[in-house]
Each structure stands twice: as C-alpha cells, then as structure tokens.
C-alpha cells in the first residue's frame, strides 16, 4: 500500500504536472486568442507578419516582445495603440474586427529599420 502511494505521488509530480500544464494551457480561451511576437526587422520582424482572424467576433491578440528593445503596437486605421511593450513582457488587446485588412506597426523607434516593422491583419 505504502509503495503504491509513493509511486502515485511520483507520477503525479512528474507526468501529472506536465499533463496539468498542457491541460491548463488548452483550457484557456484559445480559439479566440492570437499571438504576435514582436522583433526588430533585423532580428526577424513581426511573427506572423500576416495574421488571419475571424471578422465580427471578439478576439484577443497577445503581443509578446521577445526582443531586447521596447516595441509599440499600432493599428492606425482603428486608432488602436499600445504605447510600449518592454522587452520580455507581453500586452493584450481585445477587439472586434470588421471585415477587411488592417496594417499594424511598431510605434517606438526600435532600430535603424524601425519603419520596416510592419504587419497585416486580415479579418474575414
């Protein structure tokens, strides 16, 4: 009996933990959540540079700055902006997109190629 309790605890703390992590990650409102990784153009630019989202539905976009400089996030057409996302941090926006195409760009002078840091959201 003691042996079984011990093995059970070991399994919970290893495999159980990993399963728990994946379960929790999947249970978050995933289908409406999109991630954009911000990187200066010489280090890879926005990832993805073209993001496809469903139109007419509340969605969350997570902008994750994996870079070593601050970046901003602007969609000029919608007057939507996040002033600054510090390196290593992330920001979220919630929005309902109408059908169409929207350019998004960085709003902080982040590198010599800052003005090339442009991406596109396609809502359909």
């Amino acid at each position, binding site marked *: 009996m*003691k*042996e079984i*309790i*011990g*093995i059970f*605890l*070991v399994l*919970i*703390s*290893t495999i159980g*933990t*990993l399963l728990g*992590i994946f379960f*929790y*990650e999947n249970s*978050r409102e995933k289908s409406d959540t999109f*991630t954009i990784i911000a990187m200066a153009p010489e280090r890879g630019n926005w990832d993805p540079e073209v993001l496809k989202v469903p139109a007419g539905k509340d969605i969350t976009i*997570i902008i*994750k700055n*994996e*870079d*070593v*400089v*601050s970046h901003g996030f602007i969609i000029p057409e919608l007057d939507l902006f996040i002033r600054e996302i*510090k*390196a*290593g*941090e*992330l920001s*979220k926006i919630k929005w309902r997109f109408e059908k169409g195409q929207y350019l998004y760009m960085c709003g*902080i*002078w*982040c*590198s010599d190629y800052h003005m090339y840091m442009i991406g596109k959201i396609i809502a359909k």
Partner: protein
Amino acid sequence: MGKKIGRIIFLFFIISNLLFAKEVHVVLRAKRYSYSPNIIEVKKDDLLILRFISEDVTHGFFLDGYGTEFYAHPGEIREIIIKANKVGRFTFRCSRTCGEFHPYMVGYLIVTPNWHQHLGFLLIFLFGIFSLVLTITGKQSPQNKLFWKIPLNWRFELTKFKWFHSIVKSRFFPLIPIIVNLFIFTVIIFAAFVGGFQPGNYNFGIMIVWILWWSLLMLFMVPIIGRFWCMICPFPLFGDWFQRGSLVKVKRKKLNGMNKKWVRNLRNLWPLVILFWITTLFSGFFTVRPFATFLLLAAIIIGACIIAIIYEKRTFCLYICPVSGFQGLYSNFSMTEIRVKDPEICKNHRTKDCITGNDKGYGCPWQELPFDMNRNTYCGMCFECIKTCTYDNMAFNIRPPGVDFLNPRKKTDDLYKRRDLDEAFKALTMLGIFLTFFLAFQGPFQYFKDTIRAITLPKFLTYILESAFLDFVFVPLTYLFFVFISKKLSGKRDISLRKIFVEYSYTLVPIGLAVWAAFSLAIILPNGSYLWHIISDPFAWGWNLFGTARIPWKPYLTNFLPYLQIFVLIFGFIFALEYGYKFSRNLYKNEEKAKKGWIPILIYLILLNLFFVFIFLGG
C-alpha cells in the same frame, strides 16, 4: 523676525549649495553588457549630470541606494541630475531587459569619502589586531571552547522530541520533500526547455535555479543545515528506485545493477574539485540561457541514472555531482549533524545494521560508517541510519558551527586519501571561482563578461586559461607562501609543509562561505523581484496564476546591501580567526610554536579579507 532669519538661512543654504557644489558632467554610454565609463567617481555633494546614451538596444539605469531610475531607447539621449548626497559605492544596473546578460549589466558610482569601504577595512583590521594581541599575550580561547564560552561538545538533540523522532523514522521521510521538489524541478526543466535561447530573466528555470536555489544554498542551507539540499535533491530518486527495486518499502535483497566500486584513489573530493571547476567554465551559458540550464539538468539526471546502474549506491552524489563538493566541505561548518549518541553501544553491536541495512531501512547509501562518523563531508543526511539503528543510538543534533574541523582523522581518511590536499584545493578553488564569478556577474568590466560568454573561441580559451591559473596556481601559491613562512617561523622541523597547508586551509571554509553569501546577497536582492513574475507565468505563455505576473522588476533593500555584505564578511572572518589558532595548536603542539606559526597565517587572512572588502565595497 524669526521667520525672516529662517528664510535668510534657507536662502544662504541654497546659494552656498549652488556656489560650492561642483558639477560633474558625464556622458554615460550603455552598450550590451556594460557602461562606459563603467566606474564614475564623484565627491560628496557634487552634482552629477549624466547624459545617458544607448548605443545598441533599450537600456536602463537603476542606481542602488538612491533609487534613481530611467531608460533610453537607442538613439535617444536622456539627461539626469543626481545630487551625490550619500557616500559609498553604489551599483547602477540596467533596468530594461537588453539581452541574456542583462541582469549582470552593472557599473559603479563611487561617492567619496567611501565610508562603507573604510568601515569594512577598519573592522577587519581591528579584529585582526585583536587576534594578534590575544595570540601574543596567550589569551586565545581554550582548545575545547568556542569564543571562551561555548563548549565544542555542546549538543542539542532534536531526535529526542517524539514528533521529530517519528517523522525521521518514517519511510516517507525524506521521500515526501523529495517528491515536492520533484514537482518543482519538473516545472523548471519544462520551462527551461520551452524557454529556448531567450534572455533568461523572465524564465522560471533560470530564475529558480540560479537566483533562488543558489542564494538559498549559500545563505541558508549550507551554513546552517549542511547537506540539507542533498537530503531533498530529486535527481538520485530514480537511481535509488532502480537499485532497490522499490520506492518506499525496504526489500531485503542485493541491490540491482552492476554495483561496481568507485576507484579507491578517487574516493575523495578530487573528482568534485575538477568537475565543479569544469562546470563553472560554462556558467556564462547555464546561468543566462534557459536551454543551457535544461541541458545541464538533463545531463545531471541522466548521469545520475547511468552511474546508479554501473556503480554502487550513491556513487554519483559522492564523487560526480558538481555541486556536491563544496556542500560537503562547507557543511563541516554547518550547525547540524547526524551522529552516534553513545559509541559504547555501537562497539558491542555486532550486526552493524547501519551498514548492512535491515527491514526498517537500507545500509548507508553514502557509503559512510555511521557508527564511526565524525565529519559531515560525506554524510548526505538521508536519515537511513536513524531508521536502521536498532538501539535508537543515532541522533540529529544542533551544534556549534565548525566543530568538525577539529575532529581526529579516521582510518578511512587514510585509506581513501581523504581530508588531504583534496579538501584544501576545494577550499582554495572556491575562492578563485568566486573571484571569476564576481568579475563576470557583478563587476562592471566588459572584458570578463566577453570571456565568460565566449563570444569568440580565443576569448573562451583565455577565460579557461585565466581561470585555471587563478584557481590552481595563483591562489594556492600565495597561500603556500604564507604557509611556508609559518613553518619557518615556528621552527618546527619534523612536520611536513603539506600537513600545514591542509590544516590551515580549513580557515578558508568560513571565509569562502562568507564571500559566497555576500555574492549571493548581491544576486538575490536586485533580481528577487523577477520571482513574482515567473511564479505566475512560468512559461511566458501569458498565464497569471497568482495575479503577480505584472509586478515590475524592482531591486529590494539594495541600500542595505553594503552593510549586509560587511556583516557576513566579518562573520566568516571571526570564525576563521577563532578556528585558525586552534589548528595552529593542533599542528605545532607546543603553545610557543603555535603562536609563531599562527602569525603569518593571520596576516594572510587579514590581507585576504581586506581584498574581499575592497572588491565588494571599494574602488
């Protein structure tokens, strides 16, 4: 009327301040991972006018003690005025994640007169002179007492409490703490794996292992409870499970695996001296890149399993685990021990269950002879001997720190060439490794950061050579020089230089612990606030488990850091002096020779600690 005078005085102060406060203009350029100039020196009450320029990525500036913080994006110039009204050496650190070495991007602001340094020098000097006077007048504390008062054989037995006794007798102890730890390390390893090559300051694996674990180890576990970490370490669990064929219950049969014996001449600290040194060569990757931490931990887990299949019992922990060496040596200083209560009972006990094992527990996995154990070096605190002892003759004690240093040699020490140059070199290399770590992680110099990060192969090779020279040549040779003088001065001929070298090297244990504790304080206090973030969002997936993911980075208590560092340095120094003279008596037997032999070592210890005060607080 009084109001008017008050105003005039106030105006006078402002004007005199403006007239006499010197303005110091500094253009401070930040580039990964150092500042230029890296050391700024001003006088008290000067007005420091900083023009801050970032040359590559966003860099920040946080000044310890003053709390000033600002940042600049690349191409931006910030101008900031700081009134230097506090004296001492203050570290300024980058406050914006700028790359993998970001937590270690620092520079120094020195506001003279540097009273912190003077205070440290004065205290070291005073205690040193005090010890010298005691030595000359023959008033050093007696051999069996610590600081004239505490008897070295004083013990407080914890196992006499019923609840404690029943806990340590249970087969679930220390299994339950190990399993809790296994859970934490599963998360660490997974986070280190998904963290990849990003900067590690927002990574759960990097932060828990290199900021929290390392600091806990050096500030709390090793100095107070010895090899407590070895007790709760989850890595050998699978090897034990395989060897015993069961996890909790005791199976009375031969252990699984090949059960080979480790080479006799390497049954000492030498393999660990070398392996720890080799591991530190890659610290520029392990401590900053999550994936490198993942590789290190994976190598340790797989290594522990393979060694458990080939070699007997805990051979991995004893002779291979890189962090086992300093824990073993330093835990001789710790305040706890597992020892026999009454040796007479063991003498008459023929079956020696603590070695052979019985249905309550296994024979000592750490290949010690529990009935004959008198030092902590090779005791992993697994509590098996407490479980197996049929007479309840094993105790878990609280004791005065450092009493193991004076215990006599045993047969096994001679047999395995233990407690010899291996321990001396462990103590000496720990000082050298401390110095390289300090320069790379807490120093302002780009050169040492470049070499430890191995940005080019020649730089990495220079780092290896410099580190080898420092650890195995320079530090031991300077020590040897004073040992040599000690021998000459004492006038004792029939004693080998080697014996003196080894005996006095134990004074470097409290000193080593103190410098590593001071180093760890300067790691945990500035970087501790990252822990709030990473416990809520361990994989950088946008989680917020405990609602603390948004707490920004902020150094804690760094204005007290110099005082805390002086305190731990003095603490180690006092113990080194106290025990040093006792070693002297042990070596030279006669009091007159002990006095003469002690003086050169005392001078060495004073110089060494003045140097440490200088690198922590001076400049």
